């Protein structure tokens, strides 16, 4: 079976918001507006690679303080302590709550790190116009889109715990700066994934 034609071969352009397929007239530079919903049309997202790199690198830099700085201050019956995300994971593990330790480890380490690696790899291979494993790379991109926001788990756990535990002198739990960086990593990597245009993977095929 022959491969399906691509939009550029048929001189059409599709609207990202409403799915309308339009003629990509030579007079139009591909940056007109969709007549149905008004979204700006792009053949490819403008500056996709540069913007995705910038957001990805910013996210990676923020990931360092996100892990080094405490995310939560816990005061139990007078004795206070600052905790980083990984200390929390280790505590759960030693306490025998392997499942919870694993869930937090996946949300705070496995998900963000695989996003860094996958997005970095996708950007590099697209820049080299590589035709290697295109279908698998396309699948990896969709995986990054799906798992992206689960890292927000850490932020939400701190929020709920801090909202609940407020017994002044007895015990108190407060958010700390690390959680701000953690949230920024999630947001920046989500934006980086949105900026990446997966159609670029397949453009290497044409030349």
């Amino acid at each position, binding site marked *: 079976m022959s*491969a399906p034609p691509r939009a550029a071969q048929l001189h059409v352009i599709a609207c990202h918001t409403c*799915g309308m397929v339009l003629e990509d007239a030579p007079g139009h530079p591909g940056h007109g507006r969709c007549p149905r919903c008004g979204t700006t049309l792009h053949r490819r997202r403008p500056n996709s690679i540069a913007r995705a790199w910038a957001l990805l690198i910013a996210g990676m830099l923020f990931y360092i303080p996100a892990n080094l700085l405490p995310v939560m201050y816990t005061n139990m019956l007078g004795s206070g302590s600052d905790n980083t995300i990984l200390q929390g994971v280790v505590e759960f593990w030693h306490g025998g709550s392997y499942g919870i330790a694993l869930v937090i480890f996946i949300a705070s380490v496995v998900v963000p790190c695989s996003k860094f690696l996958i997005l970095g790899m996708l950007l590099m291979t697209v820049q080299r116009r590589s035709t290697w494993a*295109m279908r698998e790379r396309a699948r990896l991109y969709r995986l990054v889109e799906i798992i992206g926001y689960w890292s927000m788990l850490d932020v939400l756990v701190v929020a709920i715990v801090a909202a*609940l535990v407020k017994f002044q002198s007895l015990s108190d739990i407060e958010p700390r700066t690390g959680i701000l960086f953690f949230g920024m990593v999630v947001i920046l990597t989500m934006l980086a994934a949105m900026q990446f245009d997966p159609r670029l993977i397949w453009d290497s095929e044409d030349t």
Partner: protein
Amino acid sequence: MSGGELKTFPEWVVCEHCDSVYQRVALANGQVARCERCFAPLYRASSLDAERWLALTVAAAIMFVIANLCPLVRISLQGLHNEATLWQSAAALAHGPAALIAVPTALSIIVVPFLQIALLGWILVFARRKRRAPGFATAMRMLVVLRPWSMVEVCMLGILVAIIKLSSFLEVVPGPGIWATAVLMVLITIIANRDVHWLWDMVEARPTHSESRT
């Protein structure tokens, strides 16, 4: 074909992930059309008509109100009690040096789900009479933009982790808000995470119909 009006191809569909072009074919219920080149889903057969979709949206709205008014969790420690709602959880982040993170948190668990429900409700109330709601295009564009930022399911997992975390040294009782959040999670997935493209075709078929129907 030159000039202002661009030719459109309503019978075609383009894969968002690799730009492959296909002819639209009718699908049976539950079927998904996938791209041959990259395997991304192109479109799905929708088992919901506007009427049912609106009903689920109203149900989601009710669950949203309960989830926001009722406490998610109650805890007690040596005779003292405390409880927290969704809103209080987001507000708890607003204290101290990490205060900024309260903004995206409140957006992702409260504001975005609220907007999704409100926009869908608005669109569907009109769509069930085959009419285009005022501001239809803007509302549809917003739904597409909002989708990745709705985190009710992550919030649900967060509540469960928080319960297990606290139950080692406190007495923890789930409140009514947690059940509402769980149902809301399922409903939001059904109503907002689906292919909304067909709504365009549905309300587009009879653009001048609106006057005669009211």
